């Protein structure tokens, strides 16, 4: 039988062939617990009666939503996490290093072929290195922490094949937004999205992360890219037979195949207040903007900051616009500092915040009020996500975000 990439990963792990629809119990390579869910997850873990975690080495605690803390109760999460880590011998705790989904691959945890679960929906990001990863609730996570396994229904796979070279100014963000628009916000529910083709191969791992990160916005169980030499380099592992075998079989069966020509993609934005409400930027130009947010696990990486800096070099943001830049991690911050990117952005008038979830989780980092418009590079524009329900959120690429900051309105 021929298999898609996700079927292969599961098959490798359980030691027998699997097909879509099978309900299987899989061993879990990585558990990611973020600060916002830590307290609840730990509570459930203890309520379940576990006395030890299945493997402290495979558990990663990351504080990112509540950093910097803005309410007096926020730091409770840190203490809860620290106490849990101490009690059960968990050493992988990132207290001030950046966004969880950035760190899980950047800090060397998730590798090609791994199975990872996290207490946050954007856990799907790790598919960028050819791993299966998905978000779950804290009760299920508590179960995994105790048992090291979880049941899962093997998903059908939608193949997204993109061939050719993207036009100048078009990024992987435009690609994934367009795909979500075509699939709709529920079009991939319960299914895997497999991204392939020469366009995806040409992308950096960072660009692929943007795509897999947003797979969940089409409802997908996971998004995944085929690991290659770039992946191996990014993960700091040899590009060997094991990785080479992590690719879908010729003739594997898909529930759907979407085929795109790279040249057909144009800059787009997801308009208020649905992620699948996609329009070309050409239709939106002239829309006045109050704030621009460059950051998040979707687009807060070095190449994203560099893309914005290329637009803004030697120029100043529009006077009335708040331009907020939140690097995805300490490492990204440092690299952007050392290559001059942050200096360009600062001189352009950006407010450069500490790495973390920032505005994307709507608790700080530039929350807005009624009738304000924000162009943001993150993954969700739901009603009320960044302030009141009258805030209008447009999701865009770093290039389009930088242009909006520069001109104070959406600009092609």
């Amino acid at each position, binding site marked *: 039988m021929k298999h898609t990439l996700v079927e292969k990963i599961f098959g490798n792990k359980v030691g027998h062939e699997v097909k879509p629809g099978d309900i299987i119990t899989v061993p879990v390579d990585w558990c990611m617990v973020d600060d916002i*869910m830590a307290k609840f997850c730990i509570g459930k873990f203890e309520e*379940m009666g576990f006395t030890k975690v299945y493997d402290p080495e495979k558990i990663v605690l990351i504080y990112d939503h509540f950093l910097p803390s803005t309410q007096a109760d926020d730091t409770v999460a840190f203490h809860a996490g620290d106490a849990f880590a101490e009690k059960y011998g968990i050493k992988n705790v990132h207290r001030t290093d950046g966004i969880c989904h950035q760190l899980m691959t950047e800090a060397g945890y998730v590798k090609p072929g791994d199975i990872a679960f996290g207490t946050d929906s954007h856990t799907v990001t790790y598919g960028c290195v050819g791993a299966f990863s*998905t978000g779950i609730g804290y009760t299920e996570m508590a179960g995994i922490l105790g048992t090291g396994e979880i049941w899962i229904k093997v998903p059908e796979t939608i193949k997204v094949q993109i061939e050719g070279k993207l036009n100048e100014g078009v990024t992987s963000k435009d690609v994934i937004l367009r795909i979500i628009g075509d699939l709709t916000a529920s079009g991939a529910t319960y299914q895997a999205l497999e991204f392939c083709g020469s366009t995806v191969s040409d992308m950096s791992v960072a660009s692929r992360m943007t795509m897999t990160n947003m797979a969940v916005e089409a409802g997908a169980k996971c998004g995944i890219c085929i690991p290659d030499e770039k992946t191996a380099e990014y993960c700091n592992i040899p590009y060997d037979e094991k990785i080479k075998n992590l690719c879908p079989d010729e003739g594997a069966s898909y529930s759907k195949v979407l085929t795109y020509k790279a040249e057909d993609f144009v800059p787009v934005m997801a308009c208020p207040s649905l992620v699948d409400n996609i329009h070309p930027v050409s239709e939106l130009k002239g829309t006045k903007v109050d704030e621009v947010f460059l950051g998040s696990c979707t687009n807060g990486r070095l190449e994203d900051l560099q893309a914005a800096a290329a637009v803004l070099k030697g120029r100043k943001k529009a006077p009335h616009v708040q331009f907020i830049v939140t690097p995805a991690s300490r490492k990204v911050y440092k690299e952007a500092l050392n290559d001059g990117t942050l200096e360009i952005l600062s001189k352009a008038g950006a407010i450069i915040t500490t790495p973390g979830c920032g505005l994307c*989780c709507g608790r700080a980092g530039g929350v807005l009020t009624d009738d304000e418009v924000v162009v943001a590079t993150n993954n969700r524009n739901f009603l009320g996500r960044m302030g009141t329900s009258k805030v209008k959120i447009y999701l865009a690429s770093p290039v389009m975000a930088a242009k909006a900051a520069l001109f104070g309105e959406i600009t092609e």
Partner: protein
Amino acid sequence: MSETFKAKIWKLDDDIDTDIVLPTEYLALKTVEDMKPYAFSPLRPELAAQIKPGDMIVAGKNFGCGSSREQAPEVVKALGVSCIVAQSFARIFFRNAINNGLLLIENPDLHDAVKEGDEALVTPGEKIVVNGKEFPIASLPENLMEILNAGGLVKAMRKRNGLD
């Protein structure tokens, strides 16, 4: 889980995301009880106070899309909602609801056939009757029924750990 019950319908549309079910700013509140007043607040701030225990929610497609925040189904359960019937559910919400013992039912037709305030007779795994019209519903896969029957995942795990 198979006894028939009566429920008043609250109607919502497509793509009810988890930020609508419970906005991020309330996630740091100490208990789910504290969060209850803010359920659905971005869309219908008055709704949480109007929902009475035993009522049901009927929605369109993709209910619960977005975040993995389990406080979303927990808060709905805490409001006393007996079940949610939607054309489809987002997957994380679906798992979270089952794990917390909140009954979810998929049905393609009910949403367009009823109005808010209608009363429904629900027989899980079998049918829903509204205004004299019958809507057949499927039963859940066996492994999910096991969790539901145990009263949620926590209880299932306690049993596994020899505690109950």
